[in-house]
């Protein structure tokens, strides 16, 4: 068990002090009441000695006490379970909110490098395991109170018998320890193999087309079988060892039960310091003494996985957030759209430098095309302009003001961005267009949609502007998504544009509409375009040619063709392809 992690978890307990305290206090009181019940039962039994020798008044008194105890006990037990559960849910909810908040202010490199499924699973599955673990821990806690309470009450009845029980208690711990350590090893190897199996299944099934195209089925089934067999062995182990908890602890408890019964009976006969009723109470105590041990044993392995989950959650929370904005930020009110990049150095990783000493002067209204083969790092420039990433050296200025001196929010408000990855959120079409400005009127929204050539298709949707887009907008086509993204930027009316032209996945007719909309958008605005279309490239004011992450050529189309370098080769390759 990692105590550091638990200590850290305690920070999140503080705001939930009230729930936590009610939980603990009601747990203690409820358990004490519950622990008192056997004493009263024993007292009552002692009052019914035999035929014609029953103290009905005394029994009545005892049953009334029992009745009250039962009710009080239930009330506190309810409070204990309810506050325990709501405490743990609130705890994980607060941590989840903090994770989400933090992620939203982390550098984009985090989102770019970490698999999203993994982060989501930490926010959902791992936190579920944490709240489950907190609840289990609660159970361990009440179990411990139960054990202590039981021993105290047994002490009150008979010190000798309770001493015997205390001496025998390590047997429980020994058995628990044996089972936990055995099953923990088996569980770990099972979890690993389960992961392997899931991974392999995922790989094979999601690529079923390749598997069947190359007749790989038999091999796949064989490989699957090997992992499956291994899983069987560790599965039997973990299932077997963990299922030993109940019978073996039950066994120890019956052992103690028998000893207490015999020893108690001997005392009744010998020293006569115990009554039959008291022996009965002791026996009931021994019975309820067992349960916490069963619970604790079965919970320990789960607690181990909960701390592992908590560790994964804290790993996310430990990621650095972006450097905060400057204290006295400059706000650019009337942006002209002049951009200058001065002595810029940048690389994603420390050991390989990508952009070195890059300079560029862009005047208001100019068009910059960024070209190069797939995967050459064309988005790097966008990342730097938008401050998604920070340059290692040098600076970018807009209208003469270094972008580091502005707040990120103000800076990004100067731009309009349309990426190839057409992201829309699950909401209505209207809300998606008005993404930057919620207060916009319907007229303005429709106007923007018309300007983006999107109005037509939106009206044809079943609920028009109120159509709800499914997760990531799956119920409209790729091209239509792009049109909505353009409309979203139209609404914003920015001075500088960042566009990523679509290469594929758009049918020809929509593509023309998108192109038209792009052209309309670019009119009178400074624009940076990741270009795939010759038309865009040729009439750009400046072309940046990138390869392997570096900017290798810079200039107008004619100038670059004259240079007869990488660009001209790339340009002509479209026409030069030999017959295959």
């Amino acid at each position, binding site marked *: 068990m990692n105590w550091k992690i638990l200590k850290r978890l305690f920070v999140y307990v503080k705001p939930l002090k009230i729930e936590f305290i009610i939980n603990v206090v009601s747990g203690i009181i409820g358990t004490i009441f519950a622990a008192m019940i056997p004493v009263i039962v024993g007292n009552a039994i002692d009052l019914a000695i035999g035929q014609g020798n029953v103290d009905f008044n005394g*029994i009545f008194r005892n049953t009334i006490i029992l009745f009250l105890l039962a009710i009080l006990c239930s009330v506190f037990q309810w409070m204990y379970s309810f506050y325990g559960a709501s405490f743990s849910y609130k705890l994980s909810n607060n941590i989840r909110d903090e994770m989400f908040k933090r992620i*939203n202010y982390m550098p984009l490199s985090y989102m770019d490098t970490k698999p999203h499924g993994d982060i989501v699973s930490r926010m959902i599955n791992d936190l579920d395991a944490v709240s489950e673990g907190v609840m289990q821990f609660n159970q361990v806690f009440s179990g411990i109170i139960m054990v202590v309470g039981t021993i105290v009450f047994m002490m009150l009845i008979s010190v000798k018998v309770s001493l015997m029980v205390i001496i025998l208690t390590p047997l429980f711990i020994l058995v628990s320890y044996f089972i936990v350590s055995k099953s923990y090893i088996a569980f770990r190897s099972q979890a690993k193999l389960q992961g392997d199996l899931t991974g392999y299944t995922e790989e094979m099934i999601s690529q*079923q*087309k390749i598997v069947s195209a190359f007749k790989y089925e038999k091999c796949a089934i064989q490989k699957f079988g090997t992992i499956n067999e291994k899983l069987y062995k560790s*599965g039997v182990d973990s299932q077997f060892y963990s299922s030993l908890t109940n019978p073996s602890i039950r066994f120890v408890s019956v052992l103690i039960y028998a000893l207490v019964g015999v020893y108690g009976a001997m005392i009744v006969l010998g020293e006569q310091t115990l009554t039959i009723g008291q022996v009965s109470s002791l026996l009931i105590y021994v019975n*309820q003494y067992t349960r916490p041990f069963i619970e604790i044993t079965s919970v320990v392995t789960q607690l181990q996985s909960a701390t592992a989950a908590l560790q994964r959650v804290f790993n996310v929370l430990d990621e650095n957030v972006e450097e905060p904005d400057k204290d006295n930020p400059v706000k650019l009110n009337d942006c002209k759209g002049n951009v200058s990049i001065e002595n810029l150095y940048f690389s994603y990783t420390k050991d390989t430098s990508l952009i070195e000493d890059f300079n560029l002067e862009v005047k208001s209204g100019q068009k910059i095309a960024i070209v190069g083969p797939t995967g050459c790092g064309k988005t790097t420039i966008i990342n730097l302009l938008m401050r998604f990433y920070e340059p290692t050296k040098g600076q970018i200025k807009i209208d003469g003001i270094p972008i580091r001196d502005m707040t990120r929010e103000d800076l990004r408000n100067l731009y309009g*961005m349309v990426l190839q990855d057409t992201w829309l959120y*699950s909401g209505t079409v209207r809300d998606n267009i008005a993404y930057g400005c919620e207060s916009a009127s319907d007229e303005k929204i429709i106007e923007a949609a018309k300007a983006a050539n999107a109005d037509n298709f939106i009206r044809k949707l079943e609920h028009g502007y109120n159509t709800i887009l499914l997760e990531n907008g799956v119920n409209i086509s790729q091209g239509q998504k792009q049109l909505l993204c353009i409309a979203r930027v139209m609404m914003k009316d920015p001075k500088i544009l960042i566009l990523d032209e679509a290469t594929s996945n758009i*049918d020809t007719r929509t593509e023309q509409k998108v192109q038209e909309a792009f052209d309309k958008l670019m009119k009178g605005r400074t624009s940076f375009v990741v270009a795939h*279309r010759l038309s865009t490239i040729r009439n750009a004011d400046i072309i940046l040619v990138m390869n392997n992450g570096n900017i290798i050529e810079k200039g107008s189309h004619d100038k670059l063709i004259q240079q007869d370098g990488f660009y001209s080769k790339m340009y002509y390759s479209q026409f030069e392809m030999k017959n295959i």
Partner: protein
Amino acid sequence: MVKLSSFLKKYKLHIIWGPFFKLIEAVFELIIPIYMANVIDIGIANRDKEYIVKMGALIVLFAIGGLTAAVGCQYLAAKASQGVGVDLRKAVFERVNCLSYRQIDTLGTSSLITRITNDVNNLQNAIAMTIRLAIRAPFLLIGSVIMSVMIDARMSIIFLIAVVVISLVLFLLITKASPMFTRRQTKLDKISLLARENLDGSRVIRAFSKQKNEINRFENAGGNLLDIDVAIAKILAFLNPLTYIVVDFSIIAILWIGAFQINSGLLLQGKILALINYMMQILMVLFIVAMLVMLFTRASAASKRIFEILNIEPDILDGDTKVITKNETVNKVEFQNVSFTYEHGEDDVLKDISITIKKNETLGIIGGTGSGKSTFINLLSRFYDVCKGKILIDGIDVKDYKVSDLREKIGIVPQKAILFSGTVEENLKMGRKDITKEDIERALKISQSYDFVSKLNGGLNFKIERDGKNLSGGQKQRLTIARALVGNPEILILDDSSSALDANTDANLRKELGKISGITVIIISQKFSSIRFADKILVLDDGKIAGLGTHEELLENCNLYKEIYNSQVG
């Protein structure tokens, strides 16, 4: 019809002996309180120390017997449940491997994966629990009631009432809480949707400076989940107190009525203790029953999902190979009036397509998304079966081939460069045994990957990570081309698959491909530049043929092709 019972058969002995052992344990467990009552009522009453010790020793013996039986049962349960689990997983995986694309599409990949993993695990657990508890719990329940009747028939009414009331409480709480669990799941799904959306859209969200909004949205969804969690907690928190209060009240009743019985000499003190013991036992058993009920509902849903798959008949079957007689024809591939609709699609994806491709020819296919390009090759490889019309390869209907023979003729390079975890060689061979070193070398050379593979650490034995993460996009693409060529296919299909190659490599690849004799090539692309030199270009639009001919001919007479050309040349 495959059923769970056919999987259980193998473990018949485990399934019979397991519960039997458990029954023995339960019998011991039931006897113990009676013997303890004897210690008090006979031993103490007669002041017979020897008797007391004897009884104590007997109880310990029972405990040892019980433990032995229980360990035996747990072992059998573990063996049987894991065994069934392994067999089921294997059967489902095998079945999935014979399903057609159409069937896999309808089921969905992620659902298939959860069926093989989670669902089988759930079922496995339920089997273990059934062996361990399903007999024991009711036996203890009935046994406790019978024991109470034997001790005192009148008092046993208390037991009956308690059992009914506790069962009612459990039933009410479970029925009240279980629909809330379904609602909880939808709230949880919403949270996961928002989280994923946020991660995927981080650039746009920041570009519009909408982080605060996103955080609000997320916190609201979190609040909704919390609300339902708290509501569930409120209900489930009643479980313990209500059942305990019933037990406590029953104990009060036992004490009160017991006092009268003792007074009239019908009952001894020790028996009251025994009755209370049985009462507590019943409580435990009912808790177990409640747990089993929840387990079973989950497991029966899981089993339904598992056996749904096992009972699907694969719909792409081998043809009757006897029909095949070698047919000498110059037409390598022939589509005759082919139409196709996807399972739930409304419109035809391909409409009445007829085309012939001769041996050695190169066919280029161009068109936008949804124009039917990929469907064209899916039908050719018989990943789907045509709805109308016929496809012939070497003059024989593709449905008449043995599926594996058909696919041997065809080498596919998919749009996405997908490689599997394993060595380069394994990825190229893909389990095909008849492939020689020369085949591999040749394929690597043609696909322009020979140089980079020999530079890899370990060459052909270089370990590729899952999804080919340790290779560049271009390298992956070239290896997928090599993989298709390794088997010396008669037909090579390039599905828009040269996008990650730089111009030089692309040109060299084309040159090398041109040198292979006797190979028919089909190239699919969205860019005219990739197909302009094909012998024939098929222009698809909305599932129909919009044009067929050479680049020059199409520029003359096909408007759509002209449009595409103009938009790409500018």
